[in-house]
């Protein structure tokens, strides 16, 4: 919202305060000043100049060489505007001036070989309008050399204020002035009404009926007859222009002026276009089409609050008037609407029409139901003054149920309890009274506050405490130097994921954070996705069902960046619909936290120390098992292997707890990678961290290292190619005596010499006993027994 300092000063004396002081205090009491435009600063070098002569530029068709008198001397200036002519008074930017539009500085320059000593300006360059059709031509009576801050009245300061949604009362100049009156403890001056009314009685000319009084609690109407619709006087146009509004005509401009003066939106109807000279306020009971005064056809949903005449709709209440009844050049008699509408009704309409106007913005936040009469009268007075019309006597004011001021008890000690410091009763009284709140002392401990109807946000004691705190300044609230802490156990629900991040990153993985919103096809790769009702785009229309697609997209991006070797991980929530029916309760949704590990490219680059090696399934398995071991779940989880392909993987394996899958991964299929434009192998493993978190890890226990020597034996067999390592290992462990403590594979190979579809696997066996030294004989016996059993079981051949 733009606020003009000069305009503000009509309601409060600020002459002794600097702009900085005002800006700082406004911001520090809740009306945040986001931007300040000081016209004196912005236009400080610009002056009025006279164009003495114009001649064609020798080297450019569209440029002119002008002789310009700046009040002291004649200067040669190049100008590109088509309308420049001798004798004009223009806005001139001498060398060194900074042009507001674009923020560049004028320098002495040669333009196509001809020297130029300044610039003649167009309106857009001065940010006065968007007009760039030609230079700005000024009143010929202005003397050359006069600063334009004086000549054009550019001596205001414009504040851009961000008003929070709870403060509709501050959405006007008087509203801002009221806060300043509390902050600086000085009087607020509200303009008095001074009406000259004619003998025609308003309620005999027109009538108002409210049918939907829930959504329209009050409707006041004032009538002005015999107006002459024309341009507004300069003072009014100037006021509106300063705050970024475009002047339209003297009637509409007054309604806009009142809105920005006191915050009450008004609408002026051409009374003669109102059928039956009647206003009926009611909600539509079916969908309707309606043309608003911006000539747009709008679809109104059922239940839209409308202003109607005897026959038809004439305005969308609180949002925008209709084309069928708007003020036009031939309008003679007008009806000024000054109403109070139910905020949520206006908000629903504005949302449904996707139309936010200065009016709807204020109505949906809550205007002052008590001000409608004042605003209508002030508007009628101004319109009569500047359009020559006469104000009909009296006001039509339909207000079936008066909205009363709220009364709140404030306990002084509660102020201290909430804020942590004491503010004197006198100060409290002063602040609240300056905000327009009527006060009555109840006893020495409390007061009764009667809150004006423009403060919808003040309903409870705590709301008054906030007013006191903000006006007195948050800076005055002390900063405690110490706090007390209870000694009970502290909970950290993120401890597990923090630990997981530490482990995975220390294994060499880099953490990713991917956008959880993805396209439907991506989300459908791994689950039953939940889609958004209002997505930004198809690429972000669903919640991820796993971390796979996000991870693969990051792999793709890295490949595009030229990074080919990757160890990536991510921890994030994934979402699935539990069934295909609609989502009604949290039971219909599954939200879990997952962890994904991704390997792609080379595990080892070729170097003087190492051979080049690409990541493979066994790299993945190594990292996954290292992680599981680190979180002490290696004995709780079981592995299942699937060597045939499914939709995602060429081959994969799962980690399971009590027969429930808690992790899955493998080599991602080419068909899947192609969808992500990835042209190298990718190995992934994804855990359900929510499930892992719930598994109690095995308690750490101390085992004494063996005291007696180990006996080591090796053997190698030729197996059928399809015999799996784990089957052989488990068989050995099953058949061996208790003295066998470990079986490790140390070599595996296939070769022609072994025969087709054959392979060799070699194992190291470790025997020992915790309580004695083993004899060669007992080991030899078990070892030989194992050999014979393996030969039988696997139809193997002993190699050595």
């Amino acid at each position, binding site marked *: 919202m733009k606020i003009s300092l000069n305009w503000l000063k009509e309601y409060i004396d600020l002459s002794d305060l600097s702009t900085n002081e005002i800006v700082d205090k406004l911001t520090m009491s809740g009306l945040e000043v986001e931007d300040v435009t000081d016209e004196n600063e912005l236009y400080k070098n610009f002056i009025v100049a006279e164009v003495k002569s114009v001649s064609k530029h020798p080297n450019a068709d569209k440029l002119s060489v002008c002789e310009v008198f700046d009040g002291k001397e004649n200067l040669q200036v190049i100008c590109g505007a088509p309308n420049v002519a001798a004798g004009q008074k223009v806005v001139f930017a001498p060398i060194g001036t900074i042009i507001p539009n674009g923020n560049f500085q004028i320098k002495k320059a040669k333009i196509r070989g001809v020297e130029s000593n300044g610039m003649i300006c167009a309106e857009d360059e001065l940010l006065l309008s968007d007009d760039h059709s030609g230079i700005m031509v000024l009143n010929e009576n202005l003397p050359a050399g006069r600063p334009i801050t004086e000549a054009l009245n550019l001596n205001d300061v414009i504040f851009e204020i961000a008003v929070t949604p709870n*403060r509709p009362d501050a959405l006007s100049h008087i509203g801002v002035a009221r806060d300043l009156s509390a902050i600086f403890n000085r009087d607020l001056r509200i303009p008095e009404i001074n009406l000259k009314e004619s003998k025609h009685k308003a309620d005999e000319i027109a009538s108002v009926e409210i049918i939907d009084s829930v959504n329209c609690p009050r409707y006041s109407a004032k009538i002005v007859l015999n107006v002459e619709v024309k341009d507004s006087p300069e003072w009014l146009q100037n006021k509106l222009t300063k705050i970024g509004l475009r002047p339209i005509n003297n009637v509409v401009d007054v309604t806009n002026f009142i809105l920005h003066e006191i915050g009450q939106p008004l609408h002026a109807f051409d009374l003669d276009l109102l059928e039956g000279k009647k206003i009926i306020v009611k909600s539509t009971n079916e969908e309707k089409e309606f043309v608003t005064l911006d000539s747009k056809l709008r679809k109104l949903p059922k239940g839209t609050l409308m202003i109607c005449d005897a026959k038809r709709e004439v305005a969308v209440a609180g949002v925008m008037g209709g084309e069928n009844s708007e003020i036009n050049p031939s309008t003679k008699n007008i009806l000024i609407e000054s109403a109070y509408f139910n905020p949520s009704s206006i908000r629903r309409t504005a949302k449904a029409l996707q139309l936010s106007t200065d009016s709807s913005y204020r109505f949906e936040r809550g205007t002052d139901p008590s001000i409608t009469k004042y605003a209508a009268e002030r508007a009628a007075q101004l319109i009569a003054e500047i359009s020559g019309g006469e104000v009909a006597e009296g006001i039509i004011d339909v207000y079936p149920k008066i909205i009363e001021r709220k009364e709140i008890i404030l306990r002084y000690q509660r102020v201290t309890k909430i804020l942590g410091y004491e503010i004197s009763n006198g100060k409290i009284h002063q602040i609240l009274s300056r905000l327009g709140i009527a006060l009555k002392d109840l006893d020495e401990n409390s007061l009764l506050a009667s809150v004006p109807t423009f403060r919808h946000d003040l309903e409870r004691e705590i709301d008054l405490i906030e007013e006191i705190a903000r006006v007195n300044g948050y800076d005055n609230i002390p900063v405690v130097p110490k706090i007390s802490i209870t000694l009970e156990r502290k909970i950290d629900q993120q401890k597990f994921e923090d630990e997981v991040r*530490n482990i995975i990153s220390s294994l060499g993985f880099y953490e990713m*954070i991917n956008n959880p919103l993805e396209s439907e096809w991506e989300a459908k790769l791994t689950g039953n996705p939940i889609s958004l009702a209002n997505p930004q785009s198809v690429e972000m229309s669903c*919640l991820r069902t796993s971390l796979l697609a996000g991870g693969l997209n990051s792999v793709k991006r890295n490949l595009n960046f030229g990074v080919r070797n990757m160890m990536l991980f991510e921890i994030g929530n994934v979402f699935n619909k539990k069934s295909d029916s609609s989502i009604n309760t949290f039971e219909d949704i599954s939200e879990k936290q997952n962890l994904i590990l991704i390997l792609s490219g080379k595990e080892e680059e070729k170097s003087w*120390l190492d051979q080049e090696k690409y990541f493979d399934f066994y790299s993945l398995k190594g990292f996954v098992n290292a992680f599981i071991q680190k979180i002490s779940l290696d004995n709780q989880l079981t592995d299942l292997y699937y060597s045939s392909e499914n939709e995602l993987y060429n081959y994969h394996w799962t980690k399971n707890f009590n027969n429930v899958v808690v992790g899955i991964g493998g080599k991602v299929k080419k068909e899947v990678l192609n969808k992500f434009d990835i042209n190298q192998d990718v190995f992934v493993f994804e855990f359900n961290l929510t499930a892992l978190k719930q598994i109690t890890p095995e308690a750490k226990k101390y085992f004494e290292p063996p005291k007696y020597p180990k006996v080591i034996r090796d053997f190698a067999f030729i197996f059928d190619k399809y015999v799996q390592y784990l089957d052989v290992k488990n068989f050995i462990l099953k058949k061996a005596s208790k003295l066998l403590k470990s079986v490790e594979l140390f070599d595996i190979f296939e070769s022609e010499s072994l025969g087709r579809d054959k392979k060799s696997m070699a194992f190291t066996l470790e025997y020992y006993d915790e309580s004695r030294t083993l004899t060669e004989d007992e080991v030899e016996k078990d070892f030989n027994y194992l050999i014979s059993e393996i030969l039988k079981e696997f139809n193997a051949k002993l190699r050595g």
Partner: protein
Amino acid sequence: MLDEIINQIQKEFEKDIQDADSLKKLEEIRIKYLARNGSVTLLFDKLKEASKEEKPLLGKKLNELRNSVTEKFNSKKELLEKSETSSKEFIDLTLPGKTVKLGSKHILTQTLEEIKQIFKSMGFSVFEGPELESDYYNFEALNFPADHPARDMQDTFFINQKFLLRTHTSPVQIRVMESMQPPVRAIMPGRVYRNEAINARSYCTFQQVEGLYVDTDVTFAELKGTLVSFAKQFYGSSLKYRFRPSFFPFTEPSAEMDITCFICNGKGCRICKNSGWLEILGCGMVDPNVFKYVNYDSEKYVGYAFGMGIERIALLKYGINDIRLFFENDLRFLKQF
């Protein structure tokens, strides 16, 4: 007689040891003098033949000879060993070492961990809540009335009429208060979503840390003290700050905390929009209406709450100019932290 032999052996040894220039030659010397059949060892056999009178003196001389020969031999050996290893086993210590893979946590995670650590040291617990929330927890119980413009402050992604992606971590406040009685002192980090255009300054998702403290004697002054302590620990103890009134439906009074822009030191720059201040968090005293929803007695209990965005803090702290970099996962970016 034996005396002469001793002297002769002594002289011969001195010469030999002088000439020995390799461990190989030294080994020959050892065999010649000190081994089982070496000349020095053999002399001891001759001692048996000597007379009783001669024995003590000769024995002493022989021992002296053996000691002196052994000592000289050892020091020569040491010398030769040193020089021979240095010339034979040359090692180029400047060759590059084995490449060890480092890995790292995302810079946003690191930032969050730093924040968590500070609040944990001040007695805060850590709680979580779901990202897919109900309208009730995200808005209604936080005192956002239906059809109220306050809801426009946060552009929302909806699943349907009832469910949405949480727009802030504040719903976790409600969930925590529902689950326990005061005192409650907790932070609640998590991911939130806003239906905002993706560009250098904004993204459709980011992380927040919510804070809540409810007890019988909580004050705005304590809120200020706690947040100032946090900011000084996180940004540096010389920082200047201000608390500015603001509006959140679930706190009353509400404030925003600004700190001096550390890019320009408060002089005004592009980052702080020439104000000299950077907004780092929103906070306030828990609105009594919120207590109503969780059945806390608002006469008895007072609380404060605060919330801050992690991305914004990390952008500012590390001078990163595009928020999208956090979500691209470019390893050249990730490896910098």
